């Protein structure tokens, strides 16, 4: 829903509390780069993973043999996956005022490049990336990880 058409009482309440008003509360990030075959699994549905699509917690991104996808999260972390990858956004909670939060992502297979954002900066292990065999505790900032095959 466009910001400008938010219900007036909600706007006033948010304004009075000085809180961030996001277009949709559940949005946690956005697809910024998408090449080849990219899809999103959300609540049992499969959506095309096009540039501009807003992401939600529990979304699972999949890339095909020619696919790659780049995502910017609301804490400014950047995640990008190469071909034949499955990336899940398992848990995400970010407070834009304190910059605190948690972020657990999963790379079930494929390749992933990460530049961590505000969440990882606030506390060690506030951000983790799980692969089928390991858990990465992200203290910052730029790394790559592969899983499977």
């Amino acid at each position, binding site marked *: 829903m466009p910001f400008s058409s938010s219900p007036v009482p909600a706007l006033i309440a948010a304004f009075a509390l000085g809180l961030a008003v996001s277009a949709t509360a559940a949005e946690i990030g956005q697809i*910024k780069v998408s090449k080849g075959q990219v899809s999103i699994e959300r609540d049992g549905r499969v959506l095309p993973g096009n540039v501009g699509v807003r992401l939600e917690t529990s979304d699972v991104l999949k890339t095909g043999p020619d696919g*790659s996808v780049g995502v910017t999260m609301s804490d400014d972390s950047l995640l990008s996956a190469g071909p034949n990858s499955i990336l899940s956004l398992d848990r995400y909670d970010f407070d834009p005022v304190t910059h605190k939060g948690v972020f657990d992502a999963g790379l079930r297979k494929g390749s992933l490049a990460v530049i961590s954002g505000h969440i990882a900066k606030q506390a060690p292990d506030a951000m983790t990336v799980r*692969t089928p*065999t390991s858990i990465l505790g*992200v*203290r*910052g900032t730029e790394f790559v990880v592969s*899983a499977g095959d």
Partner: protein
Amino acid sequence: MTRPRRFDRWQSIGLLAALCSGACSTGTVILLPEESGRETAVSVRQGDKEVLLKEPYAAARQTPFGPQAYRSNPDEVQSTFGAALAAQPMRPLQFTLYFVEGKDELTDESKQIVERVFSEISRRPVPDVLIVGHTDAVGTDQLNDALSRQRAETIRAALIAHGIAPENVTAVGRGKREPVVPTAEGVSEARNRRVEIVVR
């Protein structure tokens, strides 16, 4: 049936581990050089075994024997992760604009920064922008909440006039709650009269 000597068994486990470092690796983690020179580290845990990566190109392979540390290099990063790195979004950029006291009018210096914000937005295929307005500590909370909001909305309107879609620009006001320079109540402080803009 000949029972293998203890020595042989250890030898074969060693050989297996050596083979495994490449052949039965189930994944790799490589720490990359950090652009801004910030401190950086990633811990790699497999069960109760842990390797901490702290230096550029410090790396760990996951094997059935736990994570094995090794040193990677730019060639390996490029060959395994080239496609993932090529899909990396542009880094978010932050700008700060300053305002004339008590108004939603930019200072002359900040008017020029607005041009840089415009050009940064136009470089991005799907920009989204967060604008957070702030005030100094002169006046009531109510007044400063309204003023900070008005400052953020003024910049939002300018960006929309410049062509960015309204749904991609969010404006919020935080009043005097988050000063850059903490002051006593009622103190005029130019560095706190600002909006912070993140272009993603």
